[in-house]
């Protein structure tokens, strides 16, 4: 059931990206281009999404556990550290270059858009590069066992 729930959530999330036109990177760039002919639509997407999600999270806090899982898995980190800042800067630069963030880029694969596919493949490589030191660091300990 938890897998079906995730499928439906992903579907609704993607429909939201399509309806709001956030699947179009030109629409994202138009929001980010303050000095051009600015399109504030992305701010409206946030204004629509954040309160609805907040209601959901408030309801979740009143429940002992999710319907189809054992526990609520919430982020445990709280510090604003160099990793958070550096990561956000790198992400922001990439987002500004292409107008794609992970959600819309993955969804745009569904309409067979080649630019989205190139972006997502490179994104997966970027994610793997980040995991590389962790995977290498894990190797010696696994050989001891």
């Amino acid at each position, binding site marked *: 059931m938890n897998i079906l729930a995730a499928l439906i959530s992903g579907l609704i999330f993607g429909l939201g990206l399509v309806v709001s036109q956030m699947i179009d990177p030109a629409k994202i760039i138009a929001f980010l281009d303050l000095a051009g002919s600015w399109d504030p639509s992305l701010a409206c997407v946030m204004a629509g999404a954040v309160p609805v999600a907040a209601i959901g999270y408030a309801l979740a806090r009143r429940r002992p556990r999710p319907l189809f899982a054992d526990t609520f898995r919430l982020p445990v980190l709280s510090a604003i550290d160099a990793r958070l800042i550096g990561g956000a800067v790198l992400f922001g630069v990439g987002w500004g270059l292409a107008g794609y963030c*992970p959600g819309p880029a993955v969804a745009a694969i569904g309409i067979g858009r080649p630019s989205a596919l190139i972006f997502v493949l490179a994104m997966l490589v970027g994610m793997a590069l980040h995991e590389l030191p962790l995977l290498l660091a894990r190797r010696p300990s696994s050989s001891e066992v």
Partner: protein
Amino acid sequence: MANFTPISALAGGGLIGLAAALLMLLDGRIAGISGIIGGAARAARDDLGWRAAFVIGLIAAPLVYGAAGGDIPPTALSLSPATLAAAGLLVGFGTRLGNGCTSGHAVCGMARLSTRGVAATFIFMVAAFVTVFVTHHLVGG
């Protein structure tokens, strides 16, 4: 503000919020796309199914929308493969380093009033504003 579409943006945003609310209430998870995908690298085997299902739903969404008679106009933005690849690398590495993207930090983080989410959102927004200003108005224009 020629192409401002506040109604469809609010409605679509509402759907995104609903998806995030459902994923938390049903599966106890944050709907952060970069975390769902990137987190798979370190996830246990029984933790992979819901991640794959979410991504399949995300990719299926435009197809379902199209099958229901919706029209998705092609994007007017055309970028070189090199720019797309560079942007993808930055987004992939950056979102793992900073533990989140637009969905995890901005939508879910702000909905939880997470200090890290709000800070990350502010920082990546400024970085993106600056990047677009540089690439669209200073270089090449």
